[in-house]
């Protein structure tokens, strides 16, 4: 009975602490979705692969999205012709390297500030490295799902495309057939762009502010509903593990150099808790698990988890998702192990 009470109190405490951050995160990502057009950004991105990966990883600072908001944004970046390095870097880092998550982690780990910096630092490192690796593939096309690949603005990337037959339209827009509208500035809007392209390329940005606000609130409620439910599950799992599993078992698992890291990474992948609130989840394990394993949870969870894999598969083909998963998990593991071994 006491245990049940403890568990429930823990559960409620996690929820009450996490809900404000979830609200902030959801509000920001909705704001982004409806008020920012990524197209202006794509033009200013560095072409160099390493710089691109780094910049992409840092984009989260301006786009505070958690891991559910980042996949649609990364997809739009890809579709609008952002370099692969940037998009992949953004995909992996944005859920962690952003002010909301930084703040939440700071609140949670005020007693161990090094966790906050290690989390951000390692994520930056891993995301940049993976983004860099992916940029070796000069044409990301084969890695993408058909619909995404087809709707990319190929004309914006006049890189030497070993045209693989089909639709190599690397010309100026005006040299193609079709109906065009002169937009503000020199922007051309092709009226008969493929339907998929128009759908993915953030169609809402062009609506009136009032309807945008309405849609934004609608989106806030929808994401809140969905992520809130995942948060409820995550908190329930955390609370249950805390009170139901004997301390010896948890300690045995949580104090091992390697076993603790593996356990936390699996937990991160399964629980799928939103990155704005996962630090509170990790916090509830702080007394029993090694710092390295908590770090692994905090780095790896936002990059790859069950919920996320479903989202990733809407953009990338299975093979690419596997590469992402493999690289991210191995590097997170290495970072966590290094922390366990050298920082204690």
């Amino acid at each position: 009975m006491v245990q049940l009470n403890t568990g429930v109190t823990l559960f409620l405490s996690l929820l009450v602490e996490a809900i404000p951050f979830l609200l902030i995160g959801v509000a920001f990502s909705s704001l982004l979705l409806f008020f920012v057009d990524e197209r202006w950004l794509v033009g200013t991105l560095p072409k160099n692969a390493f710089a691109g990966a780094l910049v992409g990883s840092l984009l989260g600072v301006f786009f505070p999205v958690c891991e559910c908001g980042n996949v649609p944004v990364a997809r739009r970046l890809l579709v609008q012709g952002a370099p692969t390095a940037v998009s992949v870097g953004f995909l992996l880092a944005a859920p962690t390297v952003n002010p909301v998550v930084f703040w939440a982690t700071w609140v949670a780990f005020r007693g161990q500030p090094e966790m906050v910096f290690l989390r951000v630092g390692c994520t930056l490192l891993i995301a940049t490295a993976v983004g860099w690796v992916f940029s070796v593939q000069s044409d990301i096309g084969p890695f993408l799902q058909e619909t995404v690949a087809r709707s990319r603005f190929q004309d914006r990337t006049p890189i030497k495309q070993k045209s693989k037959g089909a639709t190599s339209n690397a010309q100026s827009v005006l040299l193609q057939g079709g109906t065009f509208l002169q937009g503000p500035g020199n922007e051309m809007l092709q009226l008969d762009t493929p339907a998929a392209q128009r759908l993915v390329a953030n169609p809402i940005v062009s609506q009136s502010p009032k309807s945008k606000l309405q849609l934004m609130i609608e989106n806030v409620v929808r994401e809140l509903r969905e992520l809130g439910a995942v948060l409820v599950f995550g908190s329930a799992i955390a609370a249950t593990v805390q009170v139901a599993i004997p301390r010896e078992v948890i300690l045995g698992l949580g104090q091992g150099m390697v076993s603790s890291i593996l356990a936390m990474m699996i937990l991160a992948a399964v629980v799928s808790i939103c990155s704005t609130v996962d630090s509170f989840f990790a916090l509830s394990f702080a007394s029993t698990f090694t710092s390295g394993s908590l770090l692994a949870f905090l780095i790896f969870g936002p990059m790859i988890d069950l919920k996320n894999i479903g989202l990733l598969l809407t953009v990338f083909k299975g093979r690419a998702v596997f590469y992402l998963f493999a690289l991210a998990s191995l590097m997170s593991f290495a970072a966590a192990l290094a922390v366990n071994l050298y920082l204690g």
Partner: protein
Amino acid sequence: MRSPRKQPVGSTKAPKARFHLPWRDLLDVLALGAWSAMLFRYWFSGLLLLLLHPNYAWLSNSAAIVLAALAAYRLWQAFQSSKASRRRVNADKSSDNSGHVTLLPGNLSSAILLTVAVFGLIYTPQAFASQTATQRGIADTLTLTRAQPQRFARAAAPEDRTIIDWIRLINVYPEPDAYTDEAVDVEGFVIYPEGWPDGYLMLSRFVLTCCAADAYPVGLPVKLPEDSTVQQFPVDTWLSVSGRVATETLNGQRQIAIAPTEIQTIEAPKNPYEY
């Protein structure tokens, strides 16, 4: 939940055959409203202190207000849309299409949230007690608090120090003899740690840095007076103990212990944690 189409036609208002309640929206309103109500309840009853560090109470309180506003907005919207239900259905279809992939069906999520919030409204959180302390390893943290203060101010008079002040002090300078005969006056709850000899109890408090999830126990040993029995101080009773510091060897470890001059049973404080 039923989709609007399956709603039996004219169940509530027979003359308006097309009228139907926007169930989905109402469920949202209820879920948001219940969450807001739950947070308001913790705010005004002071129960929030059992769950959160007071520094972050404002976050939860603001969330309560924002959620209430969202609920009100959704209610207004649902009201509007029930007047023009046809247009609403269309609008729903178009807005559902912003590249969003869902893991759970929306109605199920709302139902889960609503259930949890209603539960939170009914349930009164309990402060952690000895059982949790043992689970979280009080012996491990006896001389090791997780907070590592960068600035260290020695609390002026020894009798003004709380348990956590004492533990921090000992953390910095562990030699027990340095504190011999200093006056102690602390409050906490009773634990009998495993492996300790009879006649000793641990007076403990939970320390919070963020929320109840990271509450960790700290404690000072108390050497019970000769004439008292363990039955006088059952586990989890709150005591106010004053006395002098002495050095004892417990579990093969020299450490400070309180040699009490006075032990009083007290009410559990409204805010049981220290920070």
